[in-house]
């Protein structure tokens, strides 16, 4: 169904136990009993939906489908199949009006002005991701649930995410799993095979796939990142393992260039105690849970 490099294979039973307790722990510490996530029809958000349902029960999960007018109808079909299979709450919120309201449509400028009409696909894609984030955080209030992140380790490392868009969440259960491991865990937990098999895509335009766009396969990229980052191998050492030097150097640049996306923005240090610098508290402590 997919290629799983040996060195990336995980014990999926242990992973499900750890992640389940993690999800319950995060919600408990925050004083929440429910969760909400954006379900695209792709494998990452599908896996998180299954993990959340397994951890707290499907009745406590809301999956929101947030298609734009160019989004693949097949993706929405896959998302609906996941919702039906889990028996969780599902909701459809079209973001077309919000996005087109800014960029304009059919020659009519939107709130973004005339220039925004010419926006490139990447810029539009980022706007869509942030629009979805805004909707999810609004639904978080009405559903009384925390927003669960659905980004994986591979895309986070290479920066294939939108800052304050799809990366925005209260917590992320799969952010330390490479794409290949996401596939392995998805197969173990019962994500529909069609979702596991299809080519990963940001779905910004018809036919777009991550791998054709980036020029590498996920198993290869995952292996490279695993050896470079988790196993601390030098560039020369991974080249000796058989990776092409040009690819190694390009991926290194992507990882370094995305460092800012993985961290909280710095605050200018001025006072005696500064959040994140020398005012360091756990995110949740006695008194901080929602009432």
């Amino acid at each position, binding site marked *: 169904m997919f290629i799983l490099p040996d*060195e990336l*294979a*995980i*014990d999926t*039973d*242990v*992973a499900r*136990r*750890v992640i389940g*307790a*993690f999800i*319950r*722990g*995060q919600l408990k*510490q925050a004083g929440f009993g429910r969760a909400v996530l954006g379900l695209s029809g792709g494998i990452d958000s599908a896996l998180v939906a299954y993990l959340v349902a397994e951890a707290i029960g499907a009745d406590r999960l809301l999956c929101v489908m947030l298609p734009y007018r160019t989004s693949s109808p097949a993706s929405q079909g896959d998302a609906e199949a996941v919702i039906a299979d889990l028996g969780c709450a599902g909701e459809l919120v079209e973001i077309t009006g919000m996005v087109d309201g800014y960029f304009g449509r059919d020659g009519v400028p939107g709130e973004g002005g005339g220039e925004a009409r010419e926006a490139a696909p990447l810029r539009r894609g980022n706007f869509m991701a942030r629009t979805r984030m805004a909707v999810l955080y609004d639904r978080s209030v009405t559903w009384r649930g925390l927003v669960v992140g659905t980004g994986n380790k591979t895309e986070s490392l290479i920066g294939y995410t939108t800052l304050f868009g799809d990366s925005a969440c209260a917590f992320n259960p799969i952010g330390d799993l490479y794409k290949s491991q996401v596939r392995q865990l998805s197969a173990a937990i019962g994500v529909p095979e069609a979702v596991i098999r299809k080519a990963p895509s940001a779905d910004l335009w018809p036919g777009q796939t991550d791998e054709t766009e980036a020029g590498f396969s996920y198993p290869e990229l995952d292996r490279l990142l695993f050896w470079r980052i988790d196993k601390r191998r030098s560039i020369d050492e991974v080249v000796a393992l058989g990776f092409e030097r040009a690819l190694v150097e390009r991926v290194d640049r992507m990882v370094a260039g995305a460092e800012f996306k993985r961290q909280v923005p710095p605050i200018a240090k001025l006072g005696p105690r500064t959040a994140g610098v020398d*005012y*360091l*508290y*756990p*995110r*949740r*402590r*006695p008194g901080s849970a929602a009432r």
Partner: protein
Amino acid sequence: MQPLRIALAQVAPRLGDLDANLARHHELIAESRAGGAGLVVFPELGLTGYLLQDLAAEVAMRLDDPRLTSLAAATRDLSAVVSFVEESGDHRLFIAAALLEDGEVRHVHRKIHLPTYGLFDERRFFAAGGMIRAVPSRLGVGVGLAVCEDFWHLSTAQLLAMDGAQILVNVSSSPGRDLARTHEVGLGTAGSWRGLMRTYAQLTTSFVVFCNRVGVDESLSFWGGSEVIGPTGAPVFGAPMFDEGLFMVDIDLADVRRERIGLPLLRDERPELVAREWRRLIAERAGLAEDATAAPGSAPGFDVAVDR
């Protein structure tokens, strides 16, 4: 026969909530007593939770803190190992484990090795203990206390055993990591710990009692898997990974005598030789003696020569 029932309190402390954790300790001590246990062991920072950061100062207790002495008072005819943040008279904060017995604080071990690498940042928030001592116990044998990382240094187990411990107690907050499928028990951390606990038990011909917490602090998931290992190095009991619970284990302390008569490793230790060689190494590292393994021409205290 010297039977002893050990209760392993594999709990999930609430981060920063000293009152709630204290109440849970009282309950579990009572439950252990009712279950016939002679020794009950709680995990590292079981009274406070692990990932405290700046909360450490807010949950710290002095050794005369009424909350600690009231917990000690609950140990009539019982031994209990509990762990908390200890504030010294001069306001240093330690990760402490205390042996409470017959109503008193019998012994305090301050964690001596504070991991400050990888996912750990303990040295930023805590002071390192400066003593390692075994203590006689109402159980009739010496007890040695260690906290988590202390066991990742060979000298800890050896010193405690040489000082008279027949039960080595390690209390831990070990975060689980590395899920590679090739690991025997599905978790790299668990495999590493199991290996070193069996080795320590065997080489010190002592019981090793390991109590590791469960639950989640922020990103970290603690894996439990508390164990009791016999003086041959063979496991007597293993608690499940990740599940909270109070687990009762029966041991026979006479196993220590049998093992030490048959395999007199401790008798044959050479502490005077070890101490002599350590003194030499310390002097070499301080640049006060010549280092035989340094490159020729190295400056005192350095092991690589620099061309000038």
